[in-house]
């Protein structure tokens, strides 16, 4: 039986019907055409599917779509206003913190959550916050530098 759910996605209120056995990730990608979040492992180890639910990062592959009812969801698509990038996205570009880009939306969302709960993280804090986001191009140092740089500038570009 489908469930009717109502939630906020990137600032917009949506109401849709979903099958209970659909993950949040599948709903984002297949029903809402938000394909920034990726499926890597599907088991909560790689973090490529990371999105924010009520400002907290979660693996959207490990959450059911029905659970999104009443929640506020932010995906990578919601960061930029369509013209200007978020300061974290700018910093990733500046530091060349991207190679193939598959992990990037998840990395950016984890970084976004970190900086909103802790605006002045240490390098250790960044490593801990990003430990659940794997990058197979192994660009970790540049990613860490990008996040620390945003923190240093107080979120400004």
């Amino acid at each position, binding site marked *: *039986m489908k469930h009717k759910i109502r939630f906020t996605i990137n600032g917009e209120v949506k109401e849709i019907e979903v099958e209970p056995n659909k993950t949040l990730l599948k709903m984002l990608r297949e029903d809402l055409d938000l394909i920034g979040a990726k499926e890597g492992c599907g088991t909560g180890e790689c973090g490529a599917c990371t999105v924010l639910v009520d400002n*907290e990062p*979660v693996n959207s592959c*490990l959450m059911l779509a029905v*659970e999104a009812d009443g929640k506020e969801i932010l995906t990578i698509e919601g960061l930029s206003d369509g013209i200007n990038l978020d300061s974290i996205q700018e910093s990733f570009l500046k530091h060349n913190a991207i190679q193939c880009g598959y992990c990037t939306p998840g990395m950016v969302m984890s970084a976004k959550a970190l900086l909103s709960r802790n605006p002045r993280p240490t390098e250790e804090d960044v490593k801990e916050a990003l430990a*659940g986001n794997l990058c197979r191009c192994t660009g970790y140092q540049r990613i860490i530098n990008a996040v620390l740089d945003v923190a240093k500038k107080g979120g400004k570009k």
Partner: protein
Amino acid sequence: MKEFEYLKPDSIKETISILSQFGEKAQIFNGGTDLIVEMRDKIIQPEYLVDIKAIPQLNRITYNKQDGLNIGATATLNEISNSKVVQTHYPILVKACKTVGSYQVRNRATLVGNICNASPAADTAPPLLVLEVKVNIIGPTGEKIVPINQFFTGVKKNILKKGEIVTSITIPPIKDKWTGVYLKQGRKKEVDLATVGVAVVCIRDEVRIALGAVAPVPVRAFKTEELLKGKTMDESLLEKAGKSTLTEVSPISDVRSSQEYREEIIKVLVRRAILQAKGGHIL
């Protein structure tokens, strides 16, 4: 993932009635970080998924000197490790919670889910064993309290019967000054299951030791504790502690480690944990 009916009761009473009615066909859904993977892999195929996260009283973390710390079933690992009372009174638990999965996983995974899942490698189990936690259970026949060392019955098996759910765990107050340590050996520092986990609590002349990932269930090393009780810790006693602990566990070889490596690591971690808990240096 196979189709199922999603139910979201808002009371414990309703939950028990659903679980009693559907029996084996129903599955409690808490943080879901283990469950969704198992459903995806079709290891578990429930017909009814019972989401308990809408039950308000299951989300509480409360503390007072008389009763100790009570952690509700749906409190996530991040909620627990961010809790001031837990940080102040039970740093060992903060450490254990933080070693589970990633930050994202810990935003969803719960401590009660970690023990109900009953993995031999559950990171929160060894600390809960040495803290002599009580598991609070409600079922169709009423409430009961089970000591944590009787809760695990086998690999991925626990004592819960049809219709029963764990509502919370209680860490009883410890009157005397105490110290506790949880050490985890994994293949990598973050986001890995334990190869061996060791928790030690020292209270006056008593040393409590518990281990994960070394037997079908997380275990207390009672015989070794007896051996150490009241004695002054020196080099030879530390060595005896490691050897004695080995006689109380049954490590196996698996994808994470060989049996031989586990046996070595058990000795190293038991020694290191006792030393750290006693305030000594890592030798």
